[in-house]
C-alpha cells in the first residue's frame, strides 16, 4: 500500500494545456500515473499528446472516471479551480499552484472539509508513491519504493533527504508535500494518521519549518496516536522574527512558531530531531534498522 496516490489514481490536470501543466502532467504519465484528462475552459475537445482536454472537471469525472485532480492553474484562478474540483466529486485534490491568497484558501479549506474531499497543498510539490504513481513535481529518481513515509512542508529539502535515504538503501511508501502556506488542505496530523494506518509504512520522516504550530500539534498527536517511529527535521533556526522566509507560512510572529520551540515540542514527545538533513536521514536509517 501507499497513501493518497497509487495504481487506482485516475488523474485530471487543471491547466494541462499550460507550459508547466503539460510538462509535469506528461512527466507524471511517463512515470506510470494514469493521466485520464486535462481541463482548460474553452479548450474542450483538444488533446495534449493524446490526453483529452475538457472545458470542466465535471466532464472529466463523468467521461473519464477521474478521481484525483491536480491544480496547475495560475494563482488568481486556482482557488476557483480547486472549488470546481471539489464540486465535481473527485476524492482528492492536489494543488501545486504557488501564491494563492490566504483568505481564498480559508474558504476553500472549509469547502473541502464539508465535501469530505482530501486536499493537499497548495504551494506544494505533490505526492509520490514510488513505483505506483506520481502526482506533482517531485523528481522520482531520488526515491526508491520502500517502507518510510515522508511528510514535508518543503520540496527541495525533501528531495535532499530522500536522496540520502536512497543512498543508504532505504525507500519510501509515499512522499507527501503538504506545502508551506499558512493555510493548507492537509496538515502533518492528517498525513501522519494516514501513514499510521498504512500497512506498508513502517517509519515516518517529518520535515517541518518555522511558522504556525502544526509541528507542535503533530508532536502531541504522535505521542497519543502514532505507534511507528517518527524522525523529524525543522528548518529555520536562524530566521529572524517578522521576516517571511520564502514560503508565505514561514514567518515567526511573537514567540510562536520558532524552530527551537518546535524541536523542543517534538523531542519532549520522544521524536528525534536531526540537526541537518543528512543527520535526519541517518536517524531515520537507524530507526528503521532497529525495528
Amino acid at each position, binding site marked *: 500500500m501507499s497513501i493518497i496516490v497509487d495504481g487506482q489514481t485516475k488523474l485530471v490536470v487543471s491547466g494541462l494545456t499550460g507550459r508547466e501543466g503539460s510538462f509535469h502532467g506528461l512527466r507524471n504519465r511517463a512515470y506510470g500515473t494514469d493521466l485520464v484528462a486535462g481541463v482548460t475552459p474553452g479548450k474542450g475537445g483538444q488533446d495534449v499528446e493524446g490526453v483529452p482536454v475538457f472545458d470542466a472537471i465535471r466532464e472529466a469525472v463523468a467521461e473519464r472516471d477521474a478521481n484525483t485532480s491536480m491544480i496547475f492553474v495560475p494563482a488568481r484562478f486556482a482557488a476557483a479551480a480547486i472549488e470546481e474540483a471539489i464540486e465535481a466529486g473527485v476524492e482528492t485534490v492536489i494543488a501545486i499552484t504557488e501564491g494563492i491568497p490566504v*483568505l481564498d484558501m480559508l474558504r476553500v479549506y472549509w469547502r473541502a472539509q464539508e465535501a469530505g474531499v482530501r486536499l493537499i497543498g497548495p504551494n506544494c510539490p505533490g505526492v509520490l508513491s514510488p513505483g505506483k504513481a506520481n502526482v506533482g513535481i517531485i523528481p522520482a529518481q531520488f526515491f526508491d519504493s520502500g517502507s518510510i513515509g515522508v511528510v514535508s512542508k518543503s520540496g*527541495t529539502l525533501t528531495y535532499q533527504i530522500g*536522496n540520502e535515504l536512497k543512498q543508504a538503501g532505504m525507500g519510501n511508501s509515499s512522499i507527501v508535500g503538504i506545502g508551506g502556506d499558512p493555510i493548507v488542505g492537509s496538515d502533518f496530523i492528517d498525513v501522519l494518521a494516514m501513514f499510521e494506518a498504512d500497512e506498508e509504512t513502517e517509519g515516518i520522516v517529518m520535515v517541518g519549518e518555522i511558522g504556525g504550530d502544526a509541528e507542535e500539534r503533530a508532536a502531541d498527536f504522535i505521542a497519543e496516536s502514532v505507534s511507528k517511529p517518527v524522525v523529524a527535521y525543522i528548518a529555520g533556526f536562524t530566521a529572524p522574527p517578522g521576516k517571511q522566509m520564502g514560503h508565505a507560512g514561514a514567518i515567526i510572529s511573537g514567540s510562536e512558531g520558532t524552530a527551537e520551540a518546535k524541536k523542543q515540542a517534538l523531542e519532549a514527545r520522544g521524536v528525534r530531531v536531526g540537526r541537518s538533513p543528512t543527520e535526519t536521514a541517518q536517524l531515520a536509517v537507524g530507526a528503521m534498522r532497529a525495528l
Partner: protein
Amino acid sequence: MDLLEYQGKGLFAAHDVPVPDGRHATTVDDAVAAANEIGYPCVVKAQVAIGKRGKAGGIKVAKDEAEARAHAEAILGMDIRGFQVHDLWIETASEIAAEYYASIVLDRSEKKLLAMLSRMGGMDVEEVVETDPEALVRRHVAPGRDLTVDEAREIAIDAGIDEDVTDQVAELLVKLAQVAVVEDATLLEVNPLIVTGDRRVVALDSKATIDNNALFRHPELAELTDRSSEDPQEAMAKQRGLTYVKLGGEIGILGNGAGLCMSTLDVVAQAGGRPANFLDAGGGSKADAIVAALEVITSDPNVTAILFNIFGGITRCDEIANGIIEASERIDIDVPLVVRLDGTNSEEGLGILAEAELGNLHVEQTMLGAAETVVGLAGEGR
C-alpha cells in the same frame, strides 16, 4: 506587507471605520501646512514600522505652528531603533476617556478569522494576556460568513466595554472584520481604540498586514511603500523578482527552494558562520536568475564569502553551472564562492565547473562540507 499607520488609517477611512482627521507629510513645510489646516492642538507622528514610537520621541503634540514646525524638524530623519523616519502623519489631537484594544487576525491553527477585544488598550496584547487573561475576549468568525452585529455586541459585553459605547464598538468590530475580508488583511489591529471625551469610538492607531499573494487584486495597496524599513539589497532583489531577506552576517547564501535555503542558513550557523542573507533562487534557476542573485549578494559590503547550495530536482545542475560561469564573466566577484551541486545532472554540472577553472571557486560534495569551507573562507576574507 505591513502598512504604516497612515496607510492603515487610509484603509480604515475608506471603509467608514472612524479615525481622527489627519494628513500625510514628507517635508517640514508640508507638515506645518497640514497642521494649520487641521488646527491645534495636533499630533505629529513618525511613520515607521515599529512599535513604541512615543517612547522614542516619535510622537509629539503641537499647540501652535511654531511647535508643529519644531516637532516636524525633530522627527523627520530621526532613527527609531534602526528605522529612519521619512513620513509624518499630522493628526488632530484626541481627548481620551478610555483606551481599548481591538483586532482581527487570521488564526492559522483553527483556519478561521479571530476577533479580539479588550478593555485594556494602549499596551501590547501579550502584556494584557499576561496581566489579566480574562480581559481579552477572543471569538472566531464562522467560516464562510461575516461577523454579525449581535456576535460583536456579545464580544463587547463580555469584554466589559463601557455600556454607552457598546454599539459603537460592536459596529467597529464588524466593519474591521469586513475590511479584513475585502482587503485581504491577515492582521488588523487597533491599539488603542479610544473613546473620546464626547463619547465617540475612534481608531487612534492602526496596524495592518496585507497578504502579499492577494496584492494583484489591490493595485492601490501594492503601490504603497515603506521607505523606513527598506534595505538597499532587499529593494534591489525586489526589482529583480527574487526572494531575499537581509540577515546581517558575512556569508552570502543562495539556495533553491525556501526549505533548503533555510536549512542552509542553519547549517552555516552550526558551522560557526553568520549568514548575510536568505535568497531562494526558485525552481527554474536559469543563468539570468543566477546573475541577478549574485549581483544582489555581492552588492552587500559585509559579504566576504558566498555559498551556493543547490539540490537539483526540476532544476538541472548543468544549467546552474553554466549560470555560475556566465555570472562570473558578467559581474566582478571578488569574494570566494563555494558551490555544492547535487541532484539532477550534478555530475555534468561539476564537470562544467571543473573545466572552467574559475580562480575563486571551491566545489564541495556535501552540505556540511560546503558550510565548513565557506565559514573558513569568510573568516580569512575579513
